């Protein structure tokens, strides 16, 4: 039997994975887990309180929103948008960011100068503002939300990974590979990429949390998926309109976002501690 890898023994990694697994189960099995159709409007039960409160209905365990839709069902179905965005946006941002980081760090010179200037320009745009403007240009919809987040957040990967590549490029084994006659492509993928991989995985895990927040922000201002797809940000926007009548409607999606982001962050932190070869043993535990 193969021994359990070190990173899987970390309590932080385990906590993060459990949280993500719960979310993934919600997203995959939403139609079976949700008590109601998330878009079905029960206009006779608008803004119903949770089942345990006075006037609550067992049919709607967490109450209903301003259109009489089941809050719990919407909460469960929203995990689909959140996780789809989290995974696809972070993979996309990682690929673009890592590509430019490796090219810039490996070749240096004017290539590095150009890529660094582009990153600098991107950073002068506050991320929220840039993603909103991109959504205006691209139009709403799930695919465009993912695209907008990729176009905003690739710089996060590029900036951090570039300096890592610059450190690795000066290592002897990289010079050795070049002397043996490895092509640039092969040197980058076989010699440098394995060295940047731990950082890359960590950054990706953190980026998933960021993507969930950005999607929530965009759907909060109505610039994400259409209104027929439930999303946590939309639920918050609806609850903000009726904050005195139904404060609980706001708590549920906030906690869901927090739970998801915390899961990805603690996973990222755990991976950083266990995968980073430069940390000492004491710092890891």
């Amino acid at each position, binding site marked *: 039997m193969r021994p359990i890898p070190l990173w899987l023994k970390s309590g932080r990694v385990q906590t993060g994975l459990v949280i993500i697994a719960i979310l993934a189960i919600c997203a995959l099995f939403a139609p079976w887990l949700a008590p109601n159709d998330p878009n079905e409007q029960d206009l006779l039960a608008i803004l119903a309180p949770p089942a345990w409160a006075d006037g609550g209905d067992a049919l709607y365990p967490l109450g209903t929103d301003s259109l009489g839709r089941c809050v719990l069902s919407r909460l469960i179905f929203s995990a689909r948008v959140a996780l789809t965005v989290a995974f696809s946006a972070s993979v996309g941002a990682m690929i673009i960011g890592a590509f430019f980081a490796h090219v810039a760090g490996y070749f240096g010179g004017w290539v590095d100068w150009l890529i660094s200037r582009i990153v600098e320009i991107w950073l002068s745009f506050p991320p929220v503002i840039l993603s909103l403007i991109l959504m205006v240009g691209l139009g709403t919809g799930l695919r465009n939300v993912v695209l907008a987040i990729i176009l905003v957040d690739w710089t996060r990967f590029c900036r951090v990974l570039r300096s890592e590549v610059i450190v690795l490029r000066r290592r002897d084994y990289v010079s050795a590979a070049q002397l043996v006659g490895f092509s640039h492509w092969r040197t980058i993928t076989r010699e440098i990429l394995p060295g940047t991989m731990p950082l890359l995985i960590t950054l990706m895990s953190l980026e998933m949390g960021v993507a969930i927040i950005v999607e929530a922000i965009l759907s909060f201002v109505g610039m994400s998926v259409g209104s027929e797809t439930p999303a946590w940000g939309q639920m918050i926007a609806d609850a903000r309109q009726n*904050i005195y009548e139904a404060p609980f409607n706001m*708590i549920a999606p906030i906690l869901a976002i927090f739970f998801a982001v*915390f899961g990805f962050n603690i996973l990222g932190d755990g991976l950083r501690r266990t995968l980073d070869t430069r940390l000492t043993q004491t710092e890891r535990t």
Partner: protein
Amino acid sequence: MRMFATIAKLLVMRVLTAIPILFVVSMLLFGILRILPVDPAAMSLPPNATTQEVEAMRSEMGLNRPIYEQFGIWLGKLLEGDIGRSIHFRQDVTSLIGSTLPATIELALLAMMVGTVLGIAGGLFLFYVRGTRAEAVMDFVSILLLSLPEFLWSLFLLLIFGVFFEVLPFTGRLSPGFERPVVTGFLLFDSLITGNIATLLNAMQHMILPSLALGIALSPALMRVLRSSLLDAYQDDYIHQARLRGLSEKRLLVRHGLKNAILPTLSLMGVQFGFLFGGTLLVEIIYSYPGMGNLMVDAIRNADLPIIQGAGLTYCVAVLVISIVVDSLYLILNPKLRVR
């Protein structure tokens, strides 16, 4: 004297590099919003306008010229301070931004103060409990706090202090019935110089929750950097020697530790303050605070291109100004420049 010359030279360089950045940013803003499937000419006319009228408007607005020429015209006007007229509000964009920007600046400045105080206090506390069991707990708490962006903090604070305890207002800038003095457009400043204390206090009450939300979201990053730079500083020999000279721990921290740890913290602040300025947009929407963020989101909902371009550009200018200001503070405080 030579120190000033060096700092001035570096600052001029810094401002000069901001110009090409702004040029590319304005090009991007123009480009992104030109791919929109909406016709600005048709939008600025009544819905029953004929095709000829729309065509006439298109040529009047210069929409039938090549795109680079359009950009040239737009940029030329921009440099004269003319960003165009809002399609929805039928007002100059410059005056719309001018009337909302002061509110955003006041919020951002207050939030920066709150965030800095919390960040430094938290960093000192984290440093103080180093190596104890409390550190592990605090470390965990700071990851928890890092998971909460200003978006969630605003909602949390609004629910707790606005809805459940009803101790603070959470909508707009002033409660109804308060006089609004207008001198410079900065409400806090204006009510202070006109001696309108009631308005000042009411406006401050409205700003507590939004600025707290932004400040709390900013602080964990500062805390962590301050702690690790303090740890680095305490590794150095001079701390050891100062301790041997019999300096008290408090004096050691202020005179030697903090003095050396503040520079890395400051260089992080430039980036963080820039993020904070962008974060005001959301906080403004959540608290219905009448600043540039609300203007921008209104414009986005109405596809009001001139405002989106103008406000987007203003946000970028603000971020660049913030980073230049923080950088110059860094240069002034950096003792390495004094030696030269």
